[in-house]
């Protein structure tokens, strides 16, 4: 009896040796690929150095308008001088800590989702998202907890973008879920209401909804009763995105096999119990990409509040560009580059976050 010692299988020997060989294999495998490589390299050489020159080397980092006119690159002095305004809008300087604290609260309630398994995690998450708007409003607006009131016309910049986006997101999801359930309801009155609502709001542009909220609504209200302009816009954004969200959620509901409903009913659950504990958790998990898509769209749509005279990040940058202290061609471009970067950072981190969530929640359903 002889043991045959089978040697461990070896990997095929690498045919790529050294960087030169790597370049040949990957960049110039045949003449077409080689040509493409050369074209791309040429484009990079033509665009990247001037871009770096403009963004960094030739930029005016400090000073005033004259420095920016003199410099051939970007005008970061403008962003520098208006940094506080871009972030906080017209929020009084001595109260800006309240905005910082609200942003921290927001980050904290997002971080809760990263918690490892702890007892009552579901309630902690739900609680933190219910508490978030209340705490943030109390902090930002002041009033009941003894803070000085900062009226909403002082809000602006990045902070207002966040307020509109977060209010839109937090408002749209529950509205969307209720509308989606209503649309599948057996009760005709509720079904017709939900279908009408969804189709009405889906069929008009957000700009029209905002316009109605800011221009028409005050005319219908009784004399002397004026509703805050920002609040009107927030309600408009939430209702509009709720209608979009409803269809995303309905997609998830339709993906749930009938057996799940029957099994839940068979184990004695009522409608709400069945939905909350069996159907919705599965449905929402399925549609995370769709939800995030809507969320990213909400963030980008926040710039539309410009047309009703609210200064979000883009609005306040535009107002700065038009100010006579900073009239120069490079200021315009730099301002827009800065605003673009701000939005990109926000949307990109949101989509990374959603990928993390998807990975975490979908374990066991990976395909």
């Amino acid at each position: 009896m002889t043991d045959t010692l089978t040697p461990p299988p070896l990997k095929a020997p690498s045919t790529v040796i050294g960087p030169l060989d790597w370049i040949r294999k990957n960049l110039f495998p045949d003449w077409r690929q080689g040509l493409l490589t050369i074209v791309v390299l040429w484009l990079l050489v033509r665009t990247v150095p001037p871009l770096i020159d403009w963004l960094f080397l030739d930029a005016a980092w400090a000073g005033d308008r004259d420095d920016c006119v003199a410099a051939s690159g970007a005008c970061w002095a403008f962003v520098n001088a208006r940094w506080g305004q871009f972030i906080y809008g017209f929020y009084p300087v001595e109260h800006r800590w309240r905005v910082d604290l609200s942003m921290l609260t927001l980050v904290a309630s997002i971080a809760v989702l990263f918690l490892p398994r702890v007892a009552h995690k579901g309630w902690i998450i739900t609680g933190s998202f219910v508490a978030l708007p209340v705490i943030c409003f109390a902090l930002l607006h002041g009033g009941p907890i003894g803070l000085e009131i900062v009226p909403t016309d002082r809000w602006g910049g990045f902070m207002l973008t966040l307020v509109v986006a977060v209010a839109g997101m937090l408002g749209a999801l529950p509205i969307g879920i209720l509308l989606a359930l209503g649309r599948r309801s057996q009760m005709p009155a509720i079904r017709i209401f939900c279908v009408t609502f969804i189709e009405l709001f889906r069929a008009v542009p957000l700009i029209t909804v905002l316009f109605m909220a800011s221009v028409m609504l005050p005319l219908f209200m009784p004399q002397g009763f004026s509703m805050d302009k920002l609040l009107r816009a927030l309600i408009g954004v939430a209702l509009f995105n709720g209608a979009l969200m409803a269809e995303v959620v309905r997609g998830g509901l339709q993906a749930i096999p009938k057996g799940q409903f029957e099994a839940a009913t068979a184990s004695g659950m009522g409608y709400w119990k069945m939905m909350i504990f069996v159907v919705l958790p599965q449905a929402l998990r399925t549609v995370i990409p769709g939800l995030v898509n809507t969320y990213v769209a909400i963030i980008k749509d926040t710039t539309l509040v410009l047309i009703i005279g609210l200064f979000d990040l883009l609005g306040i940058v535009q107002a700065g560009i038009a100010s006579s202290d900073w009239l120069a061609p490079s200021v315009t471009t730099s301002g827009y580059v800065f605003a673009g970067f701000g939005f990109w950072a926000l949307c990109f981190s949101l989509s990374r976050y959603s990928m993390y969530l998807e990975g975490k929640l979908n374990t066991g359903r990976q395909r």
Partner: protein
Amino acid sequence: MKIYPILTTAAALAVAAGGAVSAQTLEEVRERGHLNCGVSPGVTGFSNPDDEGNWSGFDVEVCRAVAAAVLEDADAVRYTPLSNTERFTALQSGEIDMLSRTTTRTLNRDTALGLNFAPVMFYDGQGFMVRQDMGVSSVLELDGATVCTSAGSTTELNLADYFEANGMSYEPVRFDRADEVLAAYDAGRCDVYTSDRSGLAARRLVMTNPAEHVMLPETISKEPLAPAVRHGDDQWFDIVTWTVYALIEAEEYGVTQGNVDEMANSENPNIARMLGAEGSPVGEWIGLDNKWVHRAIAAVGNYGEIFERHVGPNTPLEIERGMNALHTNGGLQYAMPFK
């Protein structure tokens, strides 16, 4: 986008017809402790947030002057930045007490939209900009030129009318948005750029080489920009109207922000009366105290000072007084007597 002006007009008409807005603006403002003033969300030189986040500009000074006159504090103003579409509704619905927002006074707005216009603060009009090396010194030499303009605007109509009236031909290059028009002109796609003069002055500075461009002297349309209040409160209308007159009158009499305290004791009875000297009736007549003009001028200066500070030749905008000079200097600014 064309639908919005129609909607606004319809909305404003609806309110104008209702017309039940309170006639107690002065009382309301005093009770509230601040003036609600509608301004533009960023028009160079006219209303803009400065680096510290305070509103400043030519239009903003009118709000400050009224606040100084009525509330004894020029900073007691809450500014509501308004878009083109919502400015009139905001005034109609009582959201703001006055509108000081580069708004042209027209028959339609004065009557059907239910507004009352205070005296004109800035006489604007459509002007032309060309490249210096064209060697042109008048619009009348522009026969056959290509002209960049925004599509479907009054600018385009004025242009067509003016060239036709003078028997000249031109080739329009139309764009939808103002910044596209500017970019096209800057890139050399047309010889001439036309827009409101104050706007031309501001946009010249964001061109690649501002020194290359000159404005032609002709103004071919009337754009009188005036503050407005709503119908139905004559006392408030008087206050805003006469605050504007006070700024103009002060310039005529040489009363400035710096010398207003000395001038209050002036030998000239007109100045002394206006600034509320002993026994002057100016306060009683308008329903304020005697020192209201004094405070307004101490807060913002006279008309000339406001002009110099925000849009005049020493600002980046470099707008000449022109039509906005006092009548004594051949301009149109003429205040009614404080008698």
